[in-house]
């Protein structure tokens, strides 16, 4: 059931992304209702599947990250008409769901009962913060591509189909500003939860990566909000920050392999 729901969600995400991105292949745009509707339907099935999972381990975290990315993609489409976000979110979400399925998803009532609401809140908010950091990275990449096309006076498909520069910059700003409090609360809950239930601080790897991600996200928000960075400079900062977070995670995971724990 879990796997089938994930596969159904994956299929719906794929169809939605293909329809949304069809104009890049020269096809006529499909009504937004279809692309958004299919993605939302996929997200509903995905959420039903996730509700049966324990959030402990790499696979559930990847699945949750994929769901958050799809939800953010739909929000970007509805609020900012940024359809091209799907260029990145669709393969990322699809890849994460596929990877989660490969790593193995199994119902985990036991862990959930043991760890309770705080654990779920910690994971959900942290993953949402990460997904927003990823969205900021995606917006930054879109910004740089559109910037280059506009500067080079190329009026092809990117010019026609990508959102306007300032709108992409705004998406980057909103993603960072919304992601920071989500991640902050997620990290604080993790520390509180570890002390309350385990009677000690979280593991070193968890502490290092959580703190690092928080600092990176905090820095990107600070340069945007306090230093008024915008445009290309802010885009580079977002990309560098996201890349650093992913690299540090990969390094820590290589040092402590295994899929039972996220870190």
């Amino acid at each position, binding site marked *: 059931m879990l796997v089938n729901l994930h596969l159904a969600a994956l299929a719906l995400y794929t169809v939605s992304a293909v329809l949304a991105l069809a104009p890049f292949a020269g096809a*006529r745009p499909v009504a937004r209702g279809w692309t958004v509707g299919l993605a939302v339907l996929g997200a509903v099935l995905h959420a039903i599947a996730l509700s049966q999972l324990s959030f402990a381990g790499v696979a559930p975290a990847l699945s949750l990250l994929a769901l958050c990315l799809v939800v953010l993609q739909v929000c970007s489409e509805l609020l900012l008409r940024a359809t091209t976000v799907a260029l990145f979110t669709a393969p990322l979400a699809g890849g994460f769901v596929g990877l989660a399925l490969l790593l193995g998803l199994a119902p985990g009532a036991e862990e959930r009962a043991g760890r309770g609401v705080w654990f779920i809140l910690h994971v959900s908010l942290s993953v949402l913060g990460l997904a927003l950091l990823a969205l900021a990275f995606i917006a930054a990449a879109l910004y740089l591509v*559109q910037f280059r096309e*506009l*500067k080079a*006076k190329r*009026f092809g498909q990117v*010019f*026609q189909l990508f*959102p*306007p*520069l*300032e*709108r992409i910059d705004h998406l980057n700003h909103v993603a960072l500003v919304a992601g920071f409090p989500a991640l902050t609360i997620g990290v604080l809950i993790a520390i509180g939860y570890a002390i309350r239930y385990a009677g000690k601080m979280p593991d070193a790897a968890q502490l290092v990566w959580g703190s690092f991600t928080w600092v990176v996200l905090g820095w990107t928000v600070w340069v945007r909000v306090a230093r*008024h*960075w*915008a*445009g*290309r*400079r802010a885009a580079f900062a977002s990309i560098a920050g996201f890349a650093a977070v992913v690299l540090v995670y990969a390094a820590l995971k290589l040092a402590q392999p295994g899929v039972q724990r996220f870190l």
Partner: protein
Amino acid sequence: MSIAILGVNHRTAPLEVRERFAHAPHEVPEALTRVLAAGASGGVLLSTCNRTEFYLSEPKEGVPEAVWGLLGARLSGHRSAEQYGYTTRDRDAVRHLYRVSAGLDSMVLGESQIQGQVRDAWETSRPQAGPVLHRLFQSALLVGARVRTETEVGVGAASVPSAAVAVASKIFGNLTGRSALILGAGDMAELAASCLVGEGARVTLVANRTYERARAIAEQLGARALTLEEAWGFFAETDIVLCSTAAPHAVVTWDRVARAIKARGGRPLCILDLAVPRDVEPAVGQLENVFLYDVDDLQAVAGQAAAQRRSEIPAAEGIVNEEVDRFWAWYGGLVVVPALREFRERLDAVRAQEIERALRRFKHLEPEDREQLDQFSRALLNKFLHAPTLALKEAAERGRGYALLGALKELFGLEGRDDS
């Protein structure tokens, strides 16, 4: 019955002639009254900067003379209006209006402004339009909307001013509230400025070498007038700069913009150089967050959209032809019903005459027999008329009623109200 169009457009007449033929809305009723007096049951005058066309239903022989006379009176130097004009009739006239409404006959293919102009023409001429043209214009508006919805003939920016708006929109998104500075007093910049204003941008500053000219334009746009030298400092505040001076060399230099750009805090600046020769040094485009486009760039954007629109022509023409068939079926039916009635009345009169003559000879017949004979003659006539009546009605439904009707009139010498 028939429908005819007499007029001129951007293909048949130069701007100087079209300007003279253009009718302001308040002139339309009088012009139509004069043309209709020459013999037509209804008329609509469509007058835009690119066309002046009289749409007429049931025009009599003297109407063309009235139309060309009316238009010719606006020309100087004993020129004839007819030499610039064209006449289109019936199905072709319907197709013409549908193509006009869909933007397929416009100077800029697929432009949407014409749809509103067709609507305005219909509204203005309504009291004099008559039922046929009323229906024709109503359907033309629907055809225009259908073509724009079902094809991409109106997609993209297909003219230089609209390309300027498209480029600015790709940088800023919504242009509402964006500030624009006009440098110079060229027509193209004014046109592009009006397009930007149409999208919600505000022209806040107008700068020109001569202050008086700047002030004249600024007053029209509700902006502040500046001299060129005063303008450079405002590059730090404005979002869009439209350049169109008559200077023989670049007046917007790297130094001047670079100084201002530092104060912008990373906000993009869109410079649209519409002047030939160019007003802006190409090096200005290298500055961070400065997006510089000249006429060639904007023409490339417009050309791309135009090519895309042209590829949609077959689909759009298909819709137009389909709708012409539909209108013509309705119109054919409209013509056929009274003609059939007249045809039947004519033959019934012959029948009545002949049966009366026969009955005069058969005086010995009883009243019941006379009645039987009369009924027989009616039944025989009905049998004879059944097949042609059905054929004509079916032809009308398929849009061929008007052609068959001509044959019917000729064969049976009908001279009803539909002869024009």
